[in-house]
């Protein structure tokens, strides 16, 4: 169990940031989930429970998700999920169990920038920003590539868009970490496909890099997307080999795209599904 050198319950974000910057080795506590996994002592633990970060606020053009909103809150946030094709619900609802998701926080998941993260994978395909007390607001895609800095993540912001989105992942056991995950979202006239658990951090593919121009991706376009996804870097660990992951990521991305795409004719949808079938290793 992680040990606390000292414990500070910050009254507000500014105080938290100050402690974080001036107290050597200080860390912000998320949901506490990983506490059990470490035996080290953190010199100073900062708790943001009193900072009002546990709500999802909806404005005219965005959802502001507080860093202390739990994964369970995210899962059952009706409006947010309705607008975003339920990808957040689908991303989190097989993570361990309700009692765990009632503790794990969105901020902890995003700030940790874990490769296996289902939450990051889903958010990354949406129009998502993060807001940091020090560095301010920036796109999630930019944030996940930044080095860890002494800053406090306060909000994850999902802009309202005309989302058509779907989330796909593969778990070896039902509530296990994903062996690979993918989220496809069509918004603002273009496709965004994120692929995670490679096992490295999720990557976002869009525009030319993805190779899909139409709202209703053709078989050729999906094949391009699969190729693009598979050209990312993959490696092996307990949850899958490099070879399997590379194969899987293409399958999941294609399935997510087809599930999300607003095909206007059954023929077009069937053609797209046929590409997915072409990915089957079992004849």
């Amino acid at each position, binding site marked *: 169990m992680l040990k606390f050198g000292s414990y500070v319950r910050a009254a507000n974000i500014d105080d938290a940031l100050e402690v974080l910057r001036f107290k050597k080795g200080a860390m912000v506590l998320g949901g506490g989930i990983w506490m059990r996994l470490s035996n080290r002592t953190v010199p100073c633990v900062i708790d943001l429970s009193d900072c009002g970060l546990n709500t999802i606020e909806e404005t005219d053009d965005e959802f502001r998700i507080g860093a202390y909103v739990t994964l369970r809150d995210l899962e059952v946030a009706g409006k947010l999920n309705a607008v975003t094709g339920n990808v957040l619900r689908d991303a989190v609802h097989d993570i361990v169990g309700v009692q765990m998701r009632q503790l794990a926080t969105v901020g902890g998941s995003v700030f940790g920038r874990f490769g296996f993260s289902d939450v990051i994978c889903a958010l990354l395909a949406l129009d998502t920003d993060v807001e940091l007390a020090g560095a301010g607001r920036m796109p999630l895609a930019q944030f996940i590539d930044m080095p860890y800095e002494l800053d406090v993540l306060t909000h994850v912001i999902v802009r309202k868009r005309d989302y058509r989105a779907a989330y796909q992942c593969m778990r*070896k056991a039902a*509530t296990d970490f994903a062996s690979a995950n993918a989220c496809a979202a069509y918004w603002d006239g273009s496709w965004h496909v994120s692929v995670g658990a490679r096992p490295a951090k999720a990557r976002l593919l869009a525009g030319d890099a993805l190779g899909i121009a139409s709202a209703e991706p053709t078989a050729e376009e999906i094949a391009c997307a699969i190729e693009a996804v598979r050209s990312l870097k993959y490696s092996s660990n307990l949850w899958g080999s490099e070879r399997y992951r590379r194969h899987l990521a293409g*399958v999941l991305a294609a399935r997510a795209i087809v599930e999300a795409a607003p095909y206007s004719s059954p023929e077009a949808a069937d053609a797209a599904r046929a590409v997915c079938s072409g990915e089957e290793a079992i004849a």
Partner: protein
Amino acid sequence: MSMIVTRESERENLTHIGAKTVKKDAYALLAGKPLYTNDIVPADVLTLKILHSPHAFARIRSIDTSRAEKIPGVVAVYTYKDVPNKRFTLAGQSYPEASPYDRLILDEVVRYVGDEVAIVAAETEDAAERALKLIKVDYEVMEPVLDFTRAKGNPVVIHTEDNYHVNGAWINNDRMNNVVASGLSEHGDLEAAFDECDIVVDETYHTLADAQAMMETFRSFAEIDAYGRITVTSSTQVPFHVRRMVANALDIPQSRVRVVKPRIGGGFGAKQTGCNEIFCAFVTAKTGRPSKIIYTREETLASSNSRHEMQLHVRLGAKNDGTIVAIDLYTLSNQGAYGEHGPTTVGLSGHKSLPLYNHAKASRFAFDVVYSNTMPAGAYRGYGATQGLFAVESAVNELADRLGMDPCEIRLKNLVTPGERLAQYDDNELYSCTAADCLRRAMEMIGWADKPLRQDLGDRVRGLGVALSMQGSAIAKIDIGSVDLRVEESGFYTLSIGATDMGTGCDTILAQFAAEALRCDTDRIVVHGVDTDVSPFDTGSYASASTYLTGMAVLKAAEQLIAELRRRAAGFMGVDVNDVLFDGDDMLAFEPGVLDVPADVDKPEFSGIYDDVEAIARSYQLAQASPDAEPVAKMSLTELANKLVAGGDGDCLTAHAAASSPTSPPPFMSGIAEVDVDKATGKVTVVDYVSVVDCGTVVNENLARVQAEGGIGQGIGMALTEDVQYSDRGRMRTRSFMTYKVPTRLDLPNIRMEFAPSYEPTGPFGAKSIGEVVINTPSPAIASAVAHATGHYVRTLPITPEKALFGE
């Protein structure tokens, strides 16, 4: 010690046997009462923590505990220098144990990553943990043997110590070649039989060192009682064996040790091997203070014991019509660093798989059990049979596929039937068996006749697979169960047992036997946990023994007690004992001649496998309904019991009986798995699982059903998700529930099971066992279903999505 033999007619008109009796401790458990080991530790107990080896094989050059000892709250730090230099085994087996004596409490040589290096005793857990980090060990790291397939004859020898000891030459120990045990059993002319075959399936199968993963990790505490003896309270299946282990480890007489077993949070065989009892007993002996040790999940997964990993080579020869002619099985068993249960588990891989196909003209079963520098293996539900049946049943499935035969038909064609002597089962006779019925009923349940083995469902493909399983009921000639049955003031009964309820409900099941015998409600039977000072000896709850063996002991004790009650009542009433009947509530005296004097009471008990079971069958002499005739005298049980505890003619009655069987009657089980495999991801989903079990007479329908459902659930975990992995330096990588995936409720379908009860003449009311047989079918059935779905025969468990998709 022997067994009463009865006929199936004994099963008529049973009241308590077969009922869905609620477990006696159910409501206390469900209320969350403090009943488990860690809930009842004494105050001011020392907390123990173990320093585990980071190396797979090393000699300790020096160890410095001085800084650790200075941590406030640390009472002592012990190393190999402090412990007796007398080797023992942690295997929970009857003396003389089959397992080699190859352990010390702490050793100068560490033999796997996780082996114990030092014990810290401290006032608080925090102090103990801080001290662990300050113990400085200088290791001479040696080249380990991590690949068990290269252990035999390897120049690196794992056990070279002088005081290594083997109890029995029969295990064929050759430790200087890393061989714990080896053996061979042959039947018929094997090569001639293979020459007759049209087809031979020749494949190698591999099962892993699965974790039992009971929810309650290993834990125990020790204290010194008023007489200066060490009392160990432990979550164990084998309290009497733990008494011996502790005595051996501490090099003290067994009379100085008492072991208490409270409620247990699951065992599955894990707790048939001793674990940390020796550490707390040692520290308490040294310090005179109570001490407790609670293993973490990580320690439980990586520093205790597991199933034996096995590599099994099968050659299965048959005629083109599917007749199985010859079977050759070679099992290589990975013992890991210490020898617990090595010589015995491996035997079941052949002796509990080959007899299913007893008609084969010839069979051979050979094995080696080898040491390696991995975690020691021990006992896990199925105990080698699980591994053997995965191999043999998979080979039979492959044979059927290669011949284009229905895998159920090929079994029905070759299956063992009652009355046969089993060549690979020590020539024991099979008295009870409905294996064929089990299979036929399972086929009906799943709709076998109407379903193809492979069905294309678009993005998924569905497959069907089948397997059979057998096990034993107690270890023949070695296990013993005994009970004391006492009639108490006011006329209730105390049933003292040494069998260890580990959550399975044997306390309740044995009370049901007593209630049936005594014609009373189970509430009138008092049972309690095990205390080696007061409970009668029992080898323990393992090897599927308790229902069959201790159940028989209950019936024998009940017969004796009833006879004695009748005799005493006859005395008090002044009548002949032959005219007194006990109907459960009253002692009733009748006119001479009214009661039938049973003719067959003097029949001998079953004491050897060549006994004529038909000839020695008799009726149980238990409490019985009174005839229509009017009794001439009557005395209530309460009245009698009160007289018996009074002075004068009183005599507080206790009946004692023990049971041990010359045979180990096999229960049987069929399992059919229906799986969906995602064509593109390889994800295997068990959509349906049906099973029919022949456990002889079902004693408690609920508890038997839950045994089956639970065993199948564990079997599905073994088949699909439980994937033990080691690093290339020998460190277990799957050391938490984050990486070692036991099935969640989302991973398991509703398991559908039924019973096809045979009547086992040597068992109590015809009962056999159920605890272990139920884990054996999922792996071969699912592997075959996946093979039918995908064309990929996965022969190394678990069947991960990756293997299902790409093949091995």
